[in-house]
């Protein structure tokens, strides 16, 4: 009966009820949205690479190197010579190495030149290897292996031919259309930037740039794919490389050796340390966002308490009637609290629905543009705690009108009209 009275009472004031619910829904949407995106971004970044001991690139900040080499965000400041790569990867402490060559794209998706070792040694999430949903690694110069999202969004099939573009723009006017690549493999979805990447061999990258000295196509010169194959396709430089070491104990020694490498200014970073630095930088921003969201929620809850309090004047008769038929003062108190809880619960449901819809719609955009893979699974211990806090705050905020109603019901009698 309490529930029924509370529901019908709220519905009786449906305009103010709907506006209050809307304001609470928006504030919970913001609060949970910030928390969910924060958590998902961390998880998304954290699962992108695992098992890589060092990432090496031209001297730059460790964050920049991490972002462009792993997350395909930003650009390298310089390249590394192939000679340096060979020298450093030949170190006895190095178990395996994965060269990375970036700079080209296909319809907005980045192209990564690498070796077959990439498919063998690269790990993501909890040490999960890359798995092919179709085909195999590239073996020919003009073979390409697609990430799952690329294949799905562009609807590419095995054996289909595609053309790479020079540079990273989504719309490019400089295409390597005289040297098309053939799809020989499609990777299974990883929930990492790998899904958004086209993988080709280093020789393939070299081949399409045979007639592009210094990054610009030589005017009036065109070298066909067949002619390019006759050139020496050993790369002269790469963008970065990943190293797996035989022993973790050697990590800091190798890092120091690379940082002090005398023939070229290089930097070696530990992915985990770079990520920690990223989170440290982000944490103050996260805290500010969280604080703003909490304040917005608080404002909405105060609005709800005001709405309930304002409605009390017209409800004194109702309270008198309830008391006359035997309702205790606690029933009156609980009625107001329950109404507040129902407002918050409705707002929360709307917020979750809105958040789910927004993330579903933005999922592809976020993964394509920022390499962020945000799931629609909201639940986490933090979200659980936030929900509890929201309901606790609702209870506290509703105390004012509830206590007002309680006191009124204790002090007054039948003639409250």
């Amino acid at each position: 009966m309490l529930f029924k009275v509370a529901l019908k009472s709220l519905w009786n004031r449906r305009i103010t009820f709907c506006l209050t619910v809307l304001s609470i829904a928006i504030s919970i949407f913001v609060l949970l949205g910030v928390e969910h995106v924060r958590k998902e971004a961390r998880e998304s970044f954290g699962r992108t690479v695992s098992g890589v001991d060092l990432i090496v690139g031209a001297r730059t900040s460790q964050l920049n190197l991490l972002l462009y080499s792993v997350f395909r965000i930003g650009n390298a400041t310089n390249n590394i010579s192939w000679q340096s790569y060979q020298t450093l990867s030949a170190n006895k402490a190095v178990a395996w190495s994965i060269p990375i060559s970036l700079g080209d794209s296909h319809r907005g998706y980045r192209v990564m030149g690498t070796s077959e070792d990439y498919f063998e040694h690269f790990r993501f999430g909890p040490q999960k290897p890359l798995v092919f949903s179709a085909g195999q690694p590239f073996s020919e110069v003009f073979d390409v292996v697609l990430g799952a999202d690329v294949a799905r969004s562009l609807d590419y099939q095995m054996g289909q031919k595609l053309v790479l573009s020079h540079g990273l723009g989504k719309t490019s006017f400089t295409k390597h259309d005289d040297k098309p690549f053939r799809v020989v493999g499609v990777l299974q979805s990883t929930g990492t930037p790998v899904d958004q990447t086209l993988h080709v061999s280093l020789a393939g990258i070299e081949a399409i740039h045979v007639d592009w000295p210094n990054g610009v196509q030589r005017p009036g010169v065109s070298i066909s794919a067949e002619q390019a194959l006759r050139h020496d396709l050993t790369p002269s430089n790469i963008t970065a490389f990943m190293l797996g070491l035989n022993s973790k104990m050697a990590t800091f020694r190798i890092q120091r050796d690379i940082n002090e490498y005398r023939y070229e200014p290089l930097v070696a970073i530990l992915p985990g340390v770079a990520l920690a630095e990223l989170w440290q930088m982000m944490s103050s921003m996260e805290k500010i966002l969280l604080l703003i969201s909490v304040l917005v929620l608080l404002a909405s809850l105060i609005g709800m308490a005001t709405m309930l309090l304002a409605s009390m004047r017209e409800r004194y008769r109702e309270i008198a009637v309830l008391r006359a038929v035997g309702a205790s003062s606690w029933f009156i108190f609980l009625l107001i609290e329950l109404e507040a809880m129902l407002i918050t619960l409705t707002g929360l449901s709307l917020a979750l629905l809105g958040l789910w819809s927004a993330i579903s719609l933005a999922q592809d955009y976020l993964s394509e543009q920022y390499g962020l893979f945000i799931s629609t699974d909201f639940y986490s211990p933090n979200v659980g705690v936030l929900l509890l806090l929201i309901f606790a705050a609702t209870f506290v905020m509703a105390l004012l009108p509830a206590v007002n109603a309680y006191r009124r019901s204790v002090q007054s009698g039948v003639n409250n009209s």
Partner: protein
Amino acid sequence: MVQSEESVQPELVVEMKDVHFSYSGDKSGRNQRAVLHIPHWQVASGQQVFIQGPSGCGKTTLLNLLTGMLTPDRGSICLLNKNLVTMSGHQRDRFRARHIGVVFQQFNLIPYLSVADNIGLATYFGKSLAKGQGKFADSKIVALLEQLQMPKALLTQRADSLSVGQQQRVAIARALINDPEVLVVDEPTSALDCTASDAFMKLLLEVSRDNNSTLLFVSHDQRLASNFDEIICLTELNRVVADAV
């Protein structure tokens, strides 16, 4: 002035002894306003009592004390041989729900609830029916409405869509649904015209008699007094007013 038409009184339903009540002023106790002092008053079972008095003489306060919504500063108020003063608030609420039916001047119903829900509230608080007896409750509500000459179709209508007269009848149905021993009615005809008022009075007296309820009826309209077994003038019963006068 106390006019009793019966010389032999059966079992007592109401007995008030040395009841003092005042509305509190500020926290220090200043501005405390004494409203009622009733040395002794009793009502026998089945009586239909008319309590009259001018505005401000404490009629509504008396009803609030009798229903346990207010507690006196001192004295005892026994209803059905139970002292309301020594009960806890919860016990008083439960007692009121089970044994007392209340009808106000107006605004008797929760406007946004249906007629059935308004009456159902009384069965809920009175717990007069065990769980699973919903159908029995519904049929009892229908029977009561029929007794009050109201169509069954009104059951699902919102209370605020009814006329004032219909609302008062629903209020009677709600007051009677738990078969209360005491029916407390506070100026129920004040919002009705003469014809509606007479019809209402006839109906109220009839149903309270049929239900064997003791009726305590408060009004300043002396025209209605002739319908009752006993007439109490509160200005004579209440020592505060008498002293002031």
